[in-house]
């Protein structure tokens, strides 16, 4: 469900709750991918809400650029502060291994959320949605929109983005099913999460493939840029767009039909669960092995399961669908 919380301005700094449990003296840290991104903002907000709820102290950090180098520095600083747990939305699955292992050997509980680190560098991962599911629903949506026939393309972020590549991999798996045999994926373009590059990539797609009937863009910058190009060119209803987008960025385009519907999860909830997983690890309620269970505040009970990469994870649920009916409400939240 919706937390109803408005994102609060103070992204950073510590805030302490008034709880009295054993966790109250503990410090829980979360590291987002980078600053200045509303998605990360919402995610860390959820984390802070959870920590406040159970009465701990939270630290929110993020490097100014989405790089592993910046995250390593931050983790080192957190180790020096002897925090109880570190949750991280990683910029590189493998690059954080040495530093996270150092953290774990210093007795700090380490978990990843949103974008996983490799199993060796974490105790558990909080997964927003099953990547297989994400791949599937997007191809299914595209199929429905373009009537299962014709050409479509994918507009991704950078060519090095791990989660993008995983989703694209599962999209291709899904496409092998017979119902999509008349659909053809003509190109994977990379807009590097830059509005200008995403725009010219979209324009190039339209130029190079005049018969193009759809675009899947599993990235918030890409989908917004593509939507802008399609609506500027008056292609609503001719070229369909779907993917993963932020409701507040996409509300206009969903209403105008350029993007009939799209998906995302609730980043606030990811942060929120991450907060509770941190607590559970620190309290010793769970150790991160399969079958462990814990309660995540208002979201209820969760179980640790096996993750696709061989580690363990806590799965939030299926991706959430945004369409004309619910976009108004969500656009106000994030």
């Amino acid at each position, binding site marked *: 469900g919706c937390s109803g919380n408005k994102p609060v301005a103070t992204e950073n700094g510590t805030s302490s709750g008034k709880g009295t449990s054993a966790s109250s003296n503990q410090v829980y840290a979360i590291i987002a991918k980078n600053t200045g991104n509303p998605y990360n903002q919402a995610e860390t907000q959820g984390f802070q809400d959870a920590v406040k709820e159970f009465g701990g102290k939270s630290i929110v950090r993020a490097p*100014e650029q989405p790089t592993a180098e910046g995250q390593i520095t931050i983790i080192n600083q957190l180790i020096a502060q002897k925090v109880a747990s570190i949750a991280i939305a990683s910029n590189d699955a493998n690059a954080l291994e040495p530093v996270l292992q150092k953290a774990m050997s210093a007795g700090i509980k380490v978990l990843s959320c949103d974008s996983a680190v490799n199993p060796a560098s974490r105790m558990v991962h909080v997964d927003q949605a099953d990547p297989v599911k994400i791949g599937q629903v997007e191809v299914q949506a595209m199929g429905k929109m373009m009537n299962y026939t014709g050409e479509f393309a994918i507009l991704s972020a950078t060519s090095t983005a791990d989660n993008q590549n995983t989703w694209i991999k599962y999209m291709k798996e899904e496409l092998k099913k017979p119902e999509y045999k008349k659909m053809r994926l003509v190109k994977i373009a990379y807009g590097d999460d830059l509005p200008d590059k995403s725009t010219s990539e979209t324009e190039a797609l339209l130029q190079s493939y005049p018969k193009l009937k759809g675009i899947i863009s599993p990235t918030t910058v890409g989908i917004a840029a593509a939507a802008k190009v399609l609506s500027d060119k008056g292609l609503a209803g001719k070229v369909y767009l779907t993917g993963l987008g932020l409701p507040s960025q996409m509300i206009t385009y969903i209403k105008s039909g350029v993007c009939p519907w799209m998906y995302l999860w609730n980043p606030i909830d990811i942060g929120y669960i991450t907060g509770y997983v941190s607590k559970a690890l620190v309290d010793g309620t769970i150790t991160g092995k399969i079958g462990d269970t814990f309660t995540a505040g208002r979201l209820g009970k969760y179980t640790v399961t096996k993750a696709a990469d061989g580690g363990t994870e806590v799965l939030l649920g299926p991706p959430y669908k945004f369409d004309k009916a619910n976009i108004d409400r969500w656009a106000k939240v994030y």
Partner: protein
Amino acid sequence: MGKRTKNLGRFQRDWSRQVGLTLFIIAVSVAVDIRNPRFFSVVNLSDMISNTAILSILAIGMMIVIITAGIDLSIASTMALSGMVTALTVQANRGLSPMLALLIGLAVGVLCGGVISVFVVRFSVAPIIATLGFMNAYRGLTYLVSHSNWVGPGQMSNGFMMIARGKILGINNLVIIAMLLYLLAFYFLNYTRFGRQIYAVGSNAESAKVSGINTNHVLFTVYVIMGAFAGLAGVLWVSKFASAQGDTALGYEMNVIAACVLGGVSLRGGSGKLSGVLLGSLLLGILNDALPLIDVSPFWQSAIQGAIILVAVISNVFFKRRVEYKTLARRNI
């Protein structure tokens, strides 16, 4: 006869770069069009030109700065800040007239440029350092004022988005704005005292001082102008992409500098022509537009782009050396 060769020499001196660039642009265009005939379609060309408009506007300001032997690395951050402030204002008052929005952006830009001017002129900080510092500071400020949020199309007024989308006589507003600014800058640089003083200061600051030009005043104004252009470009950017983000135009300063240098603006100061800068912007614009079109692997794009810039500047050197050699050989020795 003597006069003829002399004039030809001047033509080569003044226009060789432009001719070379034009040939290079034509070569690249034709090569691209062979791979993808859609390149020369009206739609693509007009997309490309409007995508290049903002770059070409910034290049004017950068050229003026570089003529004074300076450089401005902060422009992308100034763009982000002015774009963000304007977008936030628009978000708060949807009814705000687009004209006013442009003015707000301009004001933010002028302010940003003014602060840099103070450091460069009053405190004699090398431009590359002052602007490197404020590149960080303005970027940080952008994140702070936006509280790390974005302003999306949903929060913008239609009028605001029409700034970049609208057309006059079938020509995109951005292109019109760019053309107006080029005309204005052309007059300013070539037909006003102040314009020539900018060249003088860049060519030899010492003698400018000795001959009574207020070099501080010139330098101060130059960075303010650059700020104004960046402020304006920030608003246009946000309007065009309907999204104001903290990382707007990150790293864009390098494209602008590259456009200037391709256009023959010497980093040592003193020389630079608007026609060259326009062609330089156009070449970069074409590369940005063409690489996705010719379907090279995305992994190859940036290597190709870097290599083409290098080839362009190196071939210009060969071209220039050849011209020089020919002029020498024509001398009656």
